[in-house]
């Protein structure tokens, strides 16, 4: 058996590694995507006072700390059996929209755009954010940096810390928003809406206007037929902060819709001995292995699956774009992995519009920031949509609110099996017998998991460059047959 090792794929917390095994025919036999890291937050949160958890769990990820802070804040509210007053809830959600704006801008321009604006087969040295800027112009490049920074400024203003946010307290938030801050946020949110529309236009011209790219989206070796998961509001519209988790099958039929406390009736996790990261699946179907199709228990929790699982968007411009995407892609649900980028831009517009809605809401400058706490119920589940998938925090405490048990299913983990399968499918489609593996091959395989914006690579968001890769092809004796390097 010949082995191809892509090591490391990218960086975050140790490294991810792809092992591709070729059979005697020189075709892809199997692919393993390994996550070599574990820190054990589930265990060491035990014994802590539950009110401390929102500020401990942000340290799971320094790139998307706000998601953990929100899921944790909601789980803690549930432990105390309280609902934050309207002002507190809206402040949290306003923060969260800025968190999405920042992350989705960074992902689209730094990671996705190089493949589509510059081109999947372009020179590797041009296939990065600088190449994007070269193509679209420096003014737009500056605007990207500016808008992302403004989103960060809103987070720092509301969140209490520029990275590891501390705003949530049981039943509410620690700090309100002044009218002056509100006026500032309103202006900034208007800018986000304009920038979201602009980004969508850019995507349409560069990608949909290019038959080659459109063909890759529609027909590339990237299509997995899996179930779709996402949080929805009472109208079955996409919601990032609150609602019920809805899962639709590969044909779009609703499989289940559950409230946060019921998550363990619907989701189970499988363990493989070759990776520290677990593999969630739909409990009612069961773990059937790394297979797609309607009988598989594997699901996706991505921007695209959120749109697939919902009936629409809650804001007007995002809703227009939602309708248009499904019209152009001819039906719903969409299973093309690369359409995740399109979905992410629709979500960017939603986050911008909703940020504005919340900022002009009279409640936002209210003074009632905390619910009255009475007794401790002792168990709570908080679910939000992280940028990279549905995020579940489940806490159990004693009667004093000291933590006894913690269970976490984080955004990217939901997609672990799907990412493995996407990489395998891309490798199978691209690595052919007696054909040298090229830089383009490397990038096309990389595009399979880049679409997920996986959290173990999310630290690459802000940098001018794409992931650096080494792909070694060894024979069964370990002799190096071919080495492809992309700097």
């Amino acid at each position, binding site marked *: *058996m010949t*082995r191809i090792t892509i090591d*490391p794929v*990218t*960086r*975050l*917390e*140790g*490294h991810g590694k792809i*092992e591709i*095994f070729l059979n005697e025919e020189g075709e892809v036999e*199997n692919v*393993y995507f*390994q996550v070599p*890291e*574990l*820190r*054990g937050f*589930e*265990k*060491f*949160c*035990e014994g*802590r006072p539950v*009110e*401390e958890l929102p*500020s*401990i769990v*942000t340290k799971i*990820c*320094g*790139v998307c*700390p706000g998601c953990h802070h929100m899921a944790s804040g909601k789980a803690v509210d549930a432990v105390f059996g309280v609902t934050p007053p309207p002002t507190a809830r809206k402040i949290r959600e306003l923060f969260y929209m800025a968190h999405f704006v920042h992350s989705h801008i960074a992902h689209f321009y730094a990671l996705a755009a190089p493949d589509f604006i510059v081109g999947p087969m372009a020179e590797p040295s041009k296939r990065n954010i600088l190449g994007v800027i070269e193509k679209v112009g420096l003014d737009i490049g500056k605007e990207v940096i500016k808008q992302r920074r403004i989103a960060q400024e809103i987070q720092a203003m509301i969140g*209490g*810390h*520029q*990275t*590891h946010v*501390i705003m949530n307290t049981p*039943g509410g938030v*620690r*700090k309100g928003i002044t009218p002056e801050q509100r006026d500032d946020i309103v202006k900034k949110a208007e800018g986000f809406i304009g920038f979201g529309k602009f980004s969508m236009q850019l995507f349409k011209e560069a990608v949909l206007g290019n038959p080659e790219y459109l063909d890759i989206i529609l027909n590339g070796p990237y299509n997995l037929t899996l179930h779709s998961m996402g949080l929805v509001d009472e109208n079955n519209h996409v919601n990032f902060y609150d609602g019920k988790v809805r899962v639709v099958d590969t044909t779009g039929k609703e499989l289940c819709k559950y409230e946060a406390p019921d*998550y363990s009736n619907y989701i189970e*996790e*499988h*363990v493989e*001995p*070759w990776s*520290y990261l*677990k593999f969630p699946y739909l409990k009612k179907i069961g773990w059937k292995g790394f297979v797609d199709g309607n009988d598989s228990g594997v699901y996706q929790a991505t921007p695209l699956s959120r749109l697939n699982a919902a009936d629409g968007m809650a804001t007007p411009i995002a809703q227009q774009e939602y309708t248009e995407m499904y019209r152009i892609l001819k039906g719903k649900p969409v299973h093309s992995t690369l359409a995740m980028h399109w979905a992410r831009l629709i979500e960017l517009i939603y986050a911008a519009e909703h940020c504005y809605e919340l900022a002009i809401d009279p409640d936002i400058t209210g003074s009632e920031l905390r619910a009255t706490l009475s007794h401790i119920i002792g168990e709570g589940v908080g679910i939000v949509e992280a940028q990279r998938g549905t995020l579940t925090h*489940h806490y159990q405490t004693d009667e*004093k*609110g000291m933590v006894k*048990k913690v269970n976490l299913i984080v955004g990217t983990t939901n997609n672990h099996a799907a990412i493995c399968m996407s990489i395998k499918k891309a490798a199978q489609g691209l690595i052919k017998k007696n054909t040298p593996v090229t830089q383009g091959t490397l990038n096309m395989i990389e595009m399979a998991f880049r679409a997920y914006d996986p959290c173990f690579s999310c630290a690459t968001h*802000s*940098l001018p*460059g794409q992931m*650096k890769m080494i792909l070694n092809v060894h024979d069964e004796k370990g002799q190096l047959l071919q080495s492809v*390097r992309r*700097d």
Partner: protein
Amino acid sequence: MTTGDKPHPEKMKLAIYWGAACGGCCVSVLDTHEGLLDITAAAEPVFWPIALDTKYRDVEAMPDQYIDLTLFNGAIRNSENKHMAELLRRKSKILVAYGSCAHMGGIPGLANFFSKLEVINRVYDESESTKNPEKVHPDTHFTVREGELDIPEFYNEVYPLNKIVEVDYFIPGCPPQSSRLLEVFNAIVSGVPLPPKGSVIGALDKTNCDDCKRKKSDKKLVKRFYRPWEIEDDHETCFLEQGIICMGPATRGGCGVRCVEGNGPCRGCYGPPPGSSDPGAKMMSAIATMIDSNDPDEIDAIVDDIVDPAGLFYRFSLPLSILGKKLL
């Protein structure tokens, strides 16, 4: 910050690496914004996995002491972290423990309250959503149908960087303030004499209380301690004087008192202040002076109000502390 170019001969060679970390330290480097351009104007990043080719083989091929400055963030949690710490120590003239995890073990260091097996069992066997009747655990070396697969060994405890290799300087914080990083970097580049090896740099030589704008009276005396949600913080009086435990007296200044300005009490990410090596010991002495009682029973009752003192006083520093590993 071009990639793939040969290092510029006159430029300082810079490496940035992470062990068991969240990525927040690397974000703090990026959050220098335009300052990042100053860094890359003065220094050539030769190894920085989020920006450059991450191949470890290239680092191994460098002559010893080839790298002028390495910023190592993250704790040592597994065999890969340890291997990279040893490798980078050998290759670096100056090795800096960057951020709370490398400095003191950080939040992942709280795992030292438990054994490796307790962590593994919780995650893979006991978790409410995991179905694992055969109790499969990740294996450092595993044979699949197609061949062998390896992953690093998960250690029984978390170590700060200086328990594994000699560290030249410590830059504290979770994450360090970007402006402080720039100060340190500019000092190193300008060639000013550096403080003695083993020093904490990029922070203040006073406590966080000295830097805090909340109102303080001379007398800090309390009859009881509260959990933050048990009372209404007035948003202006010293947390400790309101009876809310704040790690300010046991914490080095330098963060800009960010959490307190967000109405959250300090949790000590900048580590103990000058003259103190153990935040818990420092905090206990601060608390002892605050208790408004001479009655031993009443004193006990007041101290009992403090929940999870070990997890609070050593929130970021358990692996470095006098407690070390699972003694509680």
